[in-house]
């Protein structure tokens, strides 16, 4: 079980703050493939990957990263702090 969290417009498009996912995905990219099949909203949210960032257990990483023992995956648009 992995906890998937969404922020900003990814959260709004998917309509959920987080979901518990049962997955055999080994990388972030694999996990996204699975998520896309969950609903049209998911497919739409993950349609422009240039605008999606990912963090594994609250550390920024990239889409090729292995999931390993990750407990929390977060997807969000490019950050706009400051």
């Amino acid at each position, binding site marked *: 079980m992995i906890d998937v*969290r969404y*922020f*900003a*417009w990814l*959260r709004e498009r998917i309509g959920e703050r987080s979901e518990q996912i049962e997955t055999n995905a080994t990388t972030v990219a694999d996990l996204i493939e699975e998520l896309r099949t969950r609903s049209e909203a998911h497919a739409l949210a993950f349609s422009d990957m240039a605008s999606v960032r990912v*963090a594994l257990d*609250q*550390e*920024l990483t990239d889409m090729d990263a292995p999931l390993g023992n990750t407990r929390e995956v*977060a997807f*969000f*648009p*490019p*950050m*706009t*702090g*400051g």
Partner: protein
Amino acid sequence: MSIRVQSQPFDMGFEVQAFTDSVPGAGAVVTFSGLVRDEGGSLGAMEIEHYPGMTEKALQSICDEAIERWSLTDALIIHRHGKLSPGEQIMMVATAARHRSDAFEGAEFLMDFLKSRAPFWKKEFTGDGAEWVDAKQSDEEALERWGSET
């Protein structure tokens, strides 16, 4: 070092004075504060979403790196989330160092990383509706000068 992520406003004057008073060995203090621009009256409000837990870790790690790289006497980051009105202070950083170039560079580094690597997202509310603020390519480029992996 001090990191604060909060929805309440902060008192810039108080924070700057308290920070300055706490670094007697330093010769230079630089502060930056970011305000909600009123955009000529068109902006009604701004809302800032963040990622509790990750935000604090990211700010801590950016702060650690700045202190080490520029031998800062101290550094401070305060960043708000939630709903803000035009003219309100969104965030501030402060750096102290023996010499001015370190204090300036440390503060600019903190800002460049906050802009593109700290998990905050801004949404603007205008008469036309609400829109997420797009990340700027220029902010991404500003990061490159520091040559870091982050």
